[in-house]
């Protein structure tokens, strides 16, 4: 057998189902109607050729020759896992368009797969190749941990698209959507409607868009200034929580609801405020267009998956603003190109409260197993200095120190701002049979900081605030709120224990690589603490205080007293 790829379409005398294409010693007769083709010389990639369109695939990505401007679905063994805009892919010096596998897909590429590029609109397969990745001999599976099919969203994450979800689960999810619409209408007294991709699918085909992963809702605010629009979302958030929904605030005009589905997945539902300021209709994050309330009211009824759901009076106003004049053409590779003026307004008015949240969520997903479960040296040091009392750990992470303090008789509250991290910390404490009160608190929210400060201040007795490796991860706003919480919490007396990276740590090796770190001058931190009414009763800086793997950071330990 030769190891040069077969130049003919399947089926023929070649064995295309095995690891490599095999060329018989004598050229096999091509199937009738096949044109003669020249052979390409690329020995590292699996390839096949269909109608002069070439697809080369390897572990790094794909290369293809395709000139039409359209959305291409990338299929693995007949199932769509990704979509790309053909004409936007980089053309290399070799004349091919180059597409690298995104990391979430690349991590799963081990085994065999039939890769196909399919024109999303026409459904025609325009190129295909049998590919072999890594050393695996089974089929590549793009699935979640429970074996459910996933696909890459436009945000670069793997999620469960409606096209791969069973019908019963989709129907159950739509029941939940209608519940939320009822709450917004009947309890919050707000005109709520389907929006964004959900509206797009309803208007185009009366169906959920297959590659979409969630439903988007909007409601028309009663207000025309951002302060009151934001306050209105606080009220909506409270009502939804009171009715039992799990709500995560993304910004001042966007709430994400998460609920478990009958197929075991966790699916989100997004609720956006829609408001008119100075004659412009805004809806986070991508709609800003000249319009008045008549673009929304009176709401109309629209068919979606056989249900009658509320929609804006003029859906095309929203759709054109969000998706451009080509909104009628399906495009799963669509990416938002939100105008600068829209982004600056939405972010300026409503944003700034989820700084780094995604980073920390990914960090604990990737590195959670590398973070020790044993208490830190700092926590062990604190326990030698303090009798057991009420202790609040701010930025508890995997809760190794919070659990250690609880084990040593402290009454512990653990705070972090990523809900998934707080949930994981809760499970860790349960498995160790210790009692820790965990709370999700966002130090970038003034409201949450004031509230938690007041709650802790209201608890009787002396308290300790403990924050290890937190301060240098915060922006100035976060650090300002940290001092606010600490000052309120310790207003009746207590101590604050801090350990943080100093400026001398900036050039030292990091176990987890570069990330946002505010290497702090201890004198600056001391000055901030003193301005909040604290006295410094201990100050030490140096290495060997917090070694981890090959890293030996330069840190400062401060003990402050109120």
């Amino acid at each position, binding site marked *: 057998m030769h190891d040069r790829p077969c130049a003919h379409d399947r089926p023929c005398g070649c064995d295309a189902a095995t690891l490599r294409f095999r060329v018989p010693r004598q050229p096999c007769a091509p199937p009738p109607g096949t044109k003669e083709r020249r052979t390409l010389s690329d020995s590292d990639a699996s390839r096949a050729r269909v109608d002069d369109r070439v697809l080369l695939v390897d572990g790094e990505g794909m290369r293809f020759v395709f000139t039409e401007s359209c959305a291409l679905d990338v299929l693995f063994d007949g199932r769509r896992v990704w979509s790309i805009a053909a004409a936007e892919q980089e053309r290399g010096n070799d004349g091919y368009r180059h597409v690298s596998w995104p990391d979430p897909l690349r991590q799963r590429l081990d085994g065999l797969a039939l890769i196909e590029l399919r024109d999303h609109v026409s459904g025609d397969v325009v190129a295909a190749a049998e590919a072999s990745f890594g050393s695996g001999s089974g089929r590549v599976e793009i699935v979640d941990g429970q074996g459910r099919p996933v696909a890459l969203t436009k945000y670069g994450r793997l999620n469960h698209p409606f096209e791969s979800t069973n019908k019963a689960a989709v129907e159950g999810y739509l029941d939940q959507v209608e519940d939320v619409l009822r709450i917004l209408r009947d309890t919050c007294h707000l005109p709520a409607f389907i929006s964004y991709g959900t509206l797009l699918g309803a208007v185009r085909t009366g169906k959920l868009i297959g590659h979409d992963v969630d439903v988007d809702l909007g409601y028309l605010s009663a207000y025309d200034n951002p302060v009151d629009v934001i306050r209105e979302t*606080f009220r909506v958030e409270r009502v939804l929580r009171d009715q039992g929904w799990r709500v995560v605030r993304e910004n001042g005009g966007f709430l994400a609801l998460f609920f478990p589905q009958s197929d075991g997945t966790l699916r989100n539902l997004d609720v956006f405020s829609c408001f008119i300021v100075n004659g412009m209709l805004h809806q986070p994050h991508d709609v800003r267009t000249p319009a008045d309330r008549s673009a929304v009211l009176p709401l109309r009824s629209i068919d979606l998956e056989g249900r009658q759901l509320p929609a804006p009076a003029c859906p095309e106003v929203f759709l054109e603003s969000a998706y451009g004049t080509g909104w009628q053409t399906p495009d799963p590779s669509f990416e938002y190109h939100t105008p600068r003026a829209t982004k600056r307004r939405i972010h300026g008015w409503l944003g700034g409260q989820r700084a780094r949240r995604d980073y920390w969520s990914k960090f604990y997903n990737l590195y959670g197993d590398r973070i020790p479960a044993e208490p830190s040296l700092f926590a062990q040091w604190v326990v030698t200095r303090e009798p057991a009392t009420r202790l609040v750990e701010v930025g508890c992470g995997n809760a190794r120190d919070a659990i250690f303090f609880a084990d040593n008789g402290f009454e512990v509250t653990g705070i972090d701002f990523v809900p998934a991290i707080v949930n994981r910390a809760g499970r860790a404490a349960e498995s160790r049979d210790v009692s820790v009160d965990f709370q999700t608190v966002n130090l970038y929210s003034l*409201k949450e900081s004031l509230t938690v400060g007041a709650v802790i201040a209201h608890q009787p007795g002396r308290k300790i605030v403990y924050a290890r490796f937190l301060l240098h991860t915060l922006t100035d706003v976060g650090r300002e709120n940290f001092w606010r919480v600490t000052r309120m919490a310790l207003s009746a007396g207590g101590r604050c224990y801090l350990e943080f990276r100093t400026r001398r740590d900036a050039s030292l090796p990091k176990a987890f690589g570069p990330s946002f770190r505010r290497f702090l001058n201890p004198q600056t931190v001391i000055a901030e603490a003193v301005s909040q009414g604290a006295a410094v009763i201990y100050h030490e800086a140096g290495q060997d205080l917090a070694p981890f793997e090959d890293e030996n950071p330069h840190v400062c330990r401060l003990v402050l007293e109120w």
Partner: protein
Amino acid sequence: MERSSIRDRGISAARRIASPRVHAMVRRRSKLQETEPELPTQIAELTKRVNELESEVQENRQLNMRLAELITVVQELLLPIAQRDDKRLNELLARYAEKL
């Protein structure tokens, strides 16, 4: 024939045959360079001012969130707490009124 005289004759010829419009453009540019020799510097300064103005606008936009949060905390949290102690509330109000 010397080179400079060939060059000078060439320039003179070009000036003679150039259209009045070209002449006007050249005159305007020369005048601009005489009166606005610092044009590139001015553009750089204006760019810097626009950047500063945009930052200031964003700072003001960000106040909306802080104000909304403060109003909510006062309305939802602090007032009900204060209302539980009328005597204390009256003392506080009297003290604030004196300071005003």
